[in-house]
C-alpha cells in the first residue's frame, strides 16, 4: 500500500490554439486560481511555464515543494501529424507486406470525387523493410525468424539515420516473440533509436490498424519525448520538482515517462479534458449521466458520460477530415488508431463559423471559420463574412459593450450589414430572421452531434443532464436542450475555463489488453483467470511507478465480445465476483446479449459468443479537490440585475420573437436563488442565454441548473 499524498497544491495546464490556461487548486480549501497566457506555437513549453509562473506569482503562499503534481493536456502529437512534422521513421514488417501502409484500406475518402488523394503514409516506401518470418493465426511459427536476413536489415536501418522505428509483424498479437527479437537486434546495433512494437502498443488483430497505430506512436515519440523533457526542465528551474502527468485521449492521466514511450495514447489529449471535467463535476453534484457540450471559437464537441465515465471508442482516425461518429468512410482521409479515445463528436460549429448561401439557395453555416483572425465581422478586425457570433449579437444575446470583459467592443451595424448582404438579401428574409436562421441551422448541426453521441449509441438523451461550457457553449446550450428534448441543463461556474479543471479531477489510468479470440463455449475458465492475473501484475508495476497514484490500484475488467462471426465487439464489464466459474460466464454472456440488443435491436440467443480481448484498466486514484461553496451572500437577487434589453428568441412554442429580457450579473447571483427565463446571464468571458419557459436555480457552488417548465 502506497502512502497517501498529503501535499496541498495541484496544477493543470491546457494548451489551446490561442490561449494556454493554467489552473491551481488548493486541495485543503478547494480554492481555484486560474491564469491565461497566449499560446506560443514555436515553443509551446515557454507558454506552459509562463502560465505556471503566473499561477505561482498570483498566490505568493504556494511553496513549490508543496505541489503534488502538474497535469498537462497538449496537442503537440496531433499537430505534428496534421502539419506533417513527424520524425523520420522506419517500418519493419513480415516479408511480403512492405506496402501495408501504402495500400492501407484500399478505399477512397470521398465517393464521387475523382480528384481525391489518399493520405501519404507517415513512413516513405524506401524506409519500409521486410523480414523473413511468419506466424499463423494461432501464433505458431510457420517460417522461423531468419537471423541472417535480420542482421542485414538492421545494418540497412542503421544507415538510414532514422529517429524512430515501428515494428509490426503478422499475428504478433498472438505471439510477440519475433517482434521482440527484431527489437532486441535493432536496439543492440542502434541503441538511441526510439522503438515501438505493435505487440506492445496494441496487441490486437487486423494488421493495418495495428501497424497504423504503431507507426503513429513511433513517428511522434521523438517530438513528444523532447517536448516533455523540456517542460520538466523548465519546471525544475522554477523549483517545481513534482511529478508531471499527461492527459490521455481516454480521459485518464499517465506519467510523463509513459507518455514519452507511448504517445499514441495522448493524441486527443486536449478534447478529452472537457469530457473529463463534465464527468467529474457531474458525479460530484449527483448527476452521473451527462452529455457534455463544449463549444469554442471554431468547433463544438459533444460526448456522452454514463455512470460518471465518458464513453470510450477505438474507431478513430487522426489527421483526417472532421470526425463524425463512425460513418462508413469516416476515417479514410486520416490515419486510424486503435487506442481508446473519449468518444466525442467534433463539428465545425463555433462562434467564428461563417454563414453563407449555396448555389441551390440554401442557408448554410460552417465548416469555414473566421477563427480569431480576422474573426467575426463585429470584432472590426477585418472580418467580412457573417459568423455565429455576429448573429448572436444582432439577436441581442450579446452585449456589444460587455464582451470579453469589455476588452472588445462589438460593432452591431457592421454585423447587420454583413448578414444583410450575404444571407438576408439573397434569401429574401429580414436581417433578424436571417440571423435567427443562422443560429437555428448551427444548432441543428449541434443537436445532430448530441444525437450521434446518444441516440446513435442507443441512449435516450432525455435521461441525461446536458452540461454546456466553453466560451460559446452557454449561449446555445439551453436552446439545444429544448430541441433535443432534454429537460435539464447545467452551466458550471466559470464555464470559459471549465475544461482546464478537468485535468485536476481525473485518475491515473493505464490500459492493457490481451487477445483471446475464442468461443465462450470452448474457453478454459482458468485461462481467463490467468490472463487477467498477468495483466494485473503488470498494472501493479505501472501503478507503483506513478508517484501521484495513491493507495491500492483499482482494476476495471472488461471483455470485448461479439457473436462468433461478427467483427465488431461490444465491451462488456465482467461480473463483479472473484471466482471465474460457470455462473460467472453465464452472467457475462447474458450481459453481452443484453448489450447487443440495446445497441442493434436484436439478440441471437442460439448463436455462439466469442471472447475477443480482455481489457484491464489499472486505476490509481487521485484525491479530488473539494468543490468550493459560494460564500454566503446576504443580498437579494435584485442586486444581480444589470438591466433589460430586447432579445430575439426562437422557441417551439408560441413565445418566440423579440422579448424584453432581464440581464443578470452572474458574479452577484446569490446561492439558492431562482429566476425565470427569458434571461441573459453575463460574466467576464461568457454569456448564458436562458430560453423562455425555462427556469434557473443557482446551486451552492455557483452552477446554474436550468430546467424546462413545460
Amino acid at each position: 500500500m502506497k502512502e497517501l499524498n498529503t501535499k496541498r497544491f495541484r496544477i493543470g495546464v491546457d494548451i489551446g490554439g490561442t490561449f494556454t490556461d493554467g489552473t491551481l487548486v488548493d486541495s485543503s480549501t478547494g480554492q481555484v486560481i486560474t491564469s491565461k497566457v497566449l499560446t506560443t506555437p514555436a515553443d509551446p513549453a515557454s507558454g506552459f511555464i509562463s502560465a505556471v509562473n503566473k499561477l505561482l506569482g498570483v498566490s505568493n503562499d504556494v511553496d513549490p515543494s508543496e505541489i503534488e503534481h502538474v497535469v498537462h493536456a497538449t496537442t503537440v502529437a496531433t499537430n505534428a501529424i496534421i502539419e506533417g512534422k513527424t520524425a523520420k521513421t522506419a517500418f519493419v514488417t513480415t516479408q511480403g507486406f512492405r506496402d501495408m501502409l501504402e495500400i492501407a484500406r484500399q478505399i477512397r475518402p470521398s465517393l464521387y470525387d475523382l480528384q481525391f488523394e489518399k493520405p501519404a503514409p507517415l513512413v516513405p516506401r524506401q524506409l519500409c523493410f521486410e523480414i523473413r518470418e511468419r506466424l499463423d493465426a494461432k501464433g505458431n511459427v510457420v517460417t522461423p525468424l531468419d537471423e541472417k536476413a535480420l542482421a542485414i536489415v538492421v545494418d540497412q536501418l542503421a544507415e538510414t539515420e532514422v529517429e524512430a522505428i515501428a515494428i509490426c509483424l503478422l499475428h504478433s498479437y498472438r505471439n510477440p516473440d519475433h517482434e521482440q527479437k527484431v527489437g532486441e537486434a535493432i536496439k543492440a546495433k542502434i541503441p538511441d533509436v526510439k522503438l515501438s512494437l505493435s505487440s506492445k502498443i496494441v496487441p490486437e488483430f487486423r494488421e493495418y490498424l495495428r501497424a497504423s497505430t504503431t507507426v503513429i506512436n513511433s513517428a511522434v515519440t521523438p517530438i513528444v519525448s523532447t517536448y516533455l523533457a523540456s517542460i520538466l526542465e523548465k519546471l525544475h528551474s522554477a523549483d517545481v520538482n513534482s511529478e508531471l502527468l499527461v492527459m490521455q485521449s481516454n480521459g485518464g492521466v499517465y506519467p510523463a515517462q509513459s507518455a514519452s514511450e507511448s504517445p499514441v495514447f495522448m493524441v486527443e489529449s486536449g478534447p478529452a479534458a472537457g469530457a473529463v471535467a463534465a464527468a467529474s463535476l457531474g458525479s460530484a453534484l449527483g448527476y452521473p449521466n451527462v452529455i457534455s457540450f463544449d463549444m469554442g471559437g471554431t468547433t463544438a464537441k459533444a460526448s456522452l458520460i454514463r455512470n460518471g465515465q465518458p464513453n470510450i471508442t477505438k474507431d478513430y482516425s487522426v489527421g483526417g477530415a472532421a470526425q463524425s461518429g463512425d460513418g462508413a468512410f469516416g476515417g479514410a482521409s486520416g490515419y486510424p488508431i486503435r487506442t481508446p479515445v473519449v468518444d466525442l463528436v467534433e463539428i465545425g460549429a463555433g462562434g467564428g463559423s461563417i454563414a453563407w448561401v449555396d448555389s441551390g439557395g440554401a442557408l448554410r453555416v460552417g465548416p469555414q471559420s473566421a477563427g480569431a483572425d480576422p474573426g467575426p465581422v463585429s470584432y472590426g478586425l477585418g472580418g467580412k463574412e457573417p459568423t455565429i457570433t455576429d448573429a448572436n449579437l444582432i439577436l441581442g444575446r450579446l452585449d456589444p459593450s460587455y464582451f470579453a470583459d469589455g476588452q472588445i467592443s462589438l460593432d452591431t451595424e457592421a454585423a447587420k450589414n454583413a448578414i444583410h448582404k450575404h444571407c438576408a438579401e439573397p434569401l429574401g428574409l429580414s436581417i433578424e430572421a436571417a440571423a435567427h436562421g443562422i443560429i437555428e441551422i448551427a444548432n441543428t448541426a449541434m443537436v445532430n452531434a448530441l444525437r450521434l453521441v446518444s441516440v446513435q449509441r442507443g441512449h435516450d438523451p432525455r435521461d441525461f443532464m446536458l452540461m454546456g461550457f466553453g466560451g460559446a457553449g452557454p449561449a446555445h446550450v439551453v436552446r439545444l436542450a429544448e430541441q433535443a428534448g432534454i429537460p435539464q441543463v447545467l452551466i458550471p461556474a466559470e464555464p470559459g475555463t471549465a475544461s482546464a479543471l478537468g485535468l485536476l479531477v481525473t485518475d491515473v489510468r493505464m490500459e492493457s489488453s490481451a487477445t483471446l479470440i475464442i468461443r465462450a463455449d470452448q474457453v478454459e475458465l482458468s485461462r481467463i483467470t490467468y490472463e487477467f492475473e498477468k495483466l494485473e501484475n503488470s498494472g501493479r508495476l505501472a501503478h507503483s511507478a506513478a508517484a501521484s497514484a495513491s493507495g491500492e490500484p483499482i482494476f476495471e475488467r472488461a471483455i470485448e465480445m461479439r457473436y462468433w462471426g461478427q467483427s465488431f465487439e461490444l465491451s462488456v464489464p465482467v461480473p463483479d465476483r472473484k471466482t471465474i466459474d460457470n455462473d460467472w460466464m453465464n452472467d457475462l454472456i447474458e450481459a453481452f446479449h443484453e448489450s447487443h440488443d440495446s445497441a442493434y435491436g436484436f439478440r441471437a440467443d442460439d448463436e455462439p459468443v466469442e471472447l475477443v480481448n480482455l481489457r484491464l484498466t489499472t486505476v490509481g486514484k487521485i484525491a479530488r479537490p473539494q468543490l468550493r461553496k459560494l460564500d454566503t451572500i446576504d443580498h437579494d437577487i435584485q442586486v444581480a440585475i444589470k438591466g433589460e434589453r430586447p432579445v430575439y428568441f426562437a422557441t417551439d412554442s408560441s413565445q418566440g420573437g423579440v422579448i424584453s429580457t432581464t440581464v443578470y450579473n452572474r458574479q452577484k447571483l446569490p446561492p439558492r436563488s431562482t429566476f425565470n427565463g427569458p434571461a441573459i446571464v453575463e460574466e467576464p468571458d461568457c454569456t448564458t442565454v436562458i430560453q423562455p419557459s425555462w427556469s434557473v436555480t443557482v446551486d451552492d457552488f455557483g452552477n446554474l441548473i436550468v430546467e424546462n417548465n413545460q
Partner: protein
Amino acid sequence: MAGDKVRNKIDPIHFEVIRSALTQVTEEMAAALRRSAYSTNVKTRQDFSCAFFDRDCKPISQAFTQPVHLGSFVELIPTSVEAYGAENLQPGDMLVVNNPFGGGSHLNDVTVFGPVHHQNELIGYVASLAHHVDVGGGAPASIGPFQEIFQEGVIITPVKLVKQGEMNEDIFKLLLAQIRSKRVTAGDFRAQVAANTVGSRRLSEIVRKYGSEDFDRYVKAVIDYTDRRTRAEISDIPDGIYKSESFLDFDGFTENPVTLKTKITVDGEKVYFDFDGCDPQRRAPVNSTKAMTFSACAYALRALMAPDLPVNDGFYRHVRMNAKPGTVVHALHPAPVVGGWETQVRVNDMLFRAFAPGMPQKIASSTKAMMAQAGFGIIDQKTGEYHCNYEALAGGYGARETSDGPDAVQQHGQNTENAPVEEVESHFPVRVSQLSLIEDSEGPGKFRGGLGMRRDYHFPNDAATFTVLSDRDLEGPKGIFGGMSGRKAYYILNPDDSKRTKTELSSKCVIELKPGDTVSFQTPGGGGYGSPLERDPERVLEDVTLGKINFKRARECYGVIIDNLTNDVDKAATKRLREQINKSRSSH
C-alpha cells in the same frame, strides 16, 4: 394561418433540419448493419448500402457506401413493390429480393426492404442491400463463368422474409438451404433486418415530430432543391455530343472481346446516355442488367458535379438513358449476369473518356475498371461446414489533369475495403503470402496512373475451389491526352514455386486447387494523363527513390536520366534525351 400561402411556405430552417435527419437515418442503418454482420465482405469490406424511399418509391436519402448499389436501387424498389403489390405489405413486413430481371443486379446482391408506417399510414420504404458471400450456384462465392442465370445461384423474386416483425422461418430455411456458407449468410440477413428496423424506428420518430403532412412537404422540398441544383450543374457541362467506345477483354467462353459504345448528348439542362452499338447479350457472365447500367450513368454524371449535391430523386430523374433490351448493357432472362459489374464498371470508365474533351479538368484517365473479384470455398473436414470467402481487390487509379492516380485504391462506384490478412487467416485455412504494390505497373504520363496491387493466396494444407471473376487480361487501362497504358492484369497459379508448374489463368475461371497451391491475383496499373516526356523530372526521381519505378523505366518511358551516384536528375542529359525521343516520334 390556414391560408395556402402560409401553409405552403418552406421554412429554410426546417428544411435543413429534416434534410440532415433523413441522411442521418440511413447512416444509422449502415452502422447497425456493419456492426452486427458476420461475413468479412459485409462487416469489414462494407460491401452493402442503405437507403430510404418515399411512398411512391422515389429515392430520398442514402448512406454513402457503395454507389453501384445505390444507383441500382432506383430501379429495384419500385419494380419489386409493383410486383408484390403495395397493398399486400403490412407494418413490420420486409421483402427479400435479388431478381436481376426485376430491377436487380447480380444474384449476390440481395436486398431486404420494408414499408415504414406512422399511425398505420405508409410513409415510405427502408432498404438495405448486401453482397452475400454465397448464394449457391455453380461455384463457391457464386462467382464464375456460367452460361445461364440458373447456374449462378438462388433467384429470389420478392417474398416476405419478415412478417409483421417476425422472421418468416419457412422462407428463411428454404433460402439458406440453397446456400453454402449458411451460418455467415444467416448472420448477414439478420444484420440487414436489424438495419431496417433501426431505420424504420428513426423515421417514424421524425414523422411523429413534424407530422406527416409537413414531412411530405419537406421531402418534396429536398427533392426540388436537388433538382434545381442538378439542372444548374448539367448546364455547366459544355453542350455537345460525346462519344467513346471500349471493350471487355474476355467474356469467359469465347475469343471475342465484348464491344461497348456510347453516345452522350448534352443539351442545356438535359443529358442523355445512348448505348446503341453495344454487343448483343452473351451466353457468358458479362451481361449487365438495366439497373446496373443505369447506376454507371448515374455515377458518371454525379462525379462531374459539386461534392455536396444530395443524391435523391431530384438528381436521378435527370439520368436518362437508352440501353436496348437484349444487349450486354440491358440483359434479358435467362442471361447470366454475375460478371455484369465488370461490364458496368467498364461502361463507367468509357463514359469518363467520352466526357474528357469537354471536361478535361474533371475526369480521370482509365482506372483498373474491373471489379477484380476473387472467391474461394473450403469444406471443413471435421465439421463438414462449407466456408466461402469473397473479396474484390484494388488497382491503380487513373491520372488526373493536375495529380497522379493514387496507387492501389478502389474506383468508380466501388469502394470496398480490403479484408485484413489476419482476419482472413483466422477464419479460413488460407495464407495470404503477399500483399504489395506492383512496381513499374503505372501508366506513364505527365501525371502517372496509380500502381496495381498483388495479393497471393496460398493454401498450405487444404484443397480449395478458387474463382476469378475479373478482366483486363489482354490490355491495361489506357492513358489519355498522350498518357500511356498501365500494366495489364495477371492471374497466375503457382507464380514462384520451383516444384509446381506456373500457369497463367484466365480472368474468368473456376479452378480446383491442391494442398500447397498458390494463386497470385495481380491487378492493373492506372492510365497516365498527358505525355510522360512532360513529367516533372523531380517527380520521376521521387518515384525512383520510393522504388515505385526503376532507373530503366525512368529513362525509357519518361526520358529522365538519374545519376546513379548522386541520386539526382541529370538535367542536361534529360533535356537531350527528351528532345531526341520527341524527334524520333515526330519523324514516325
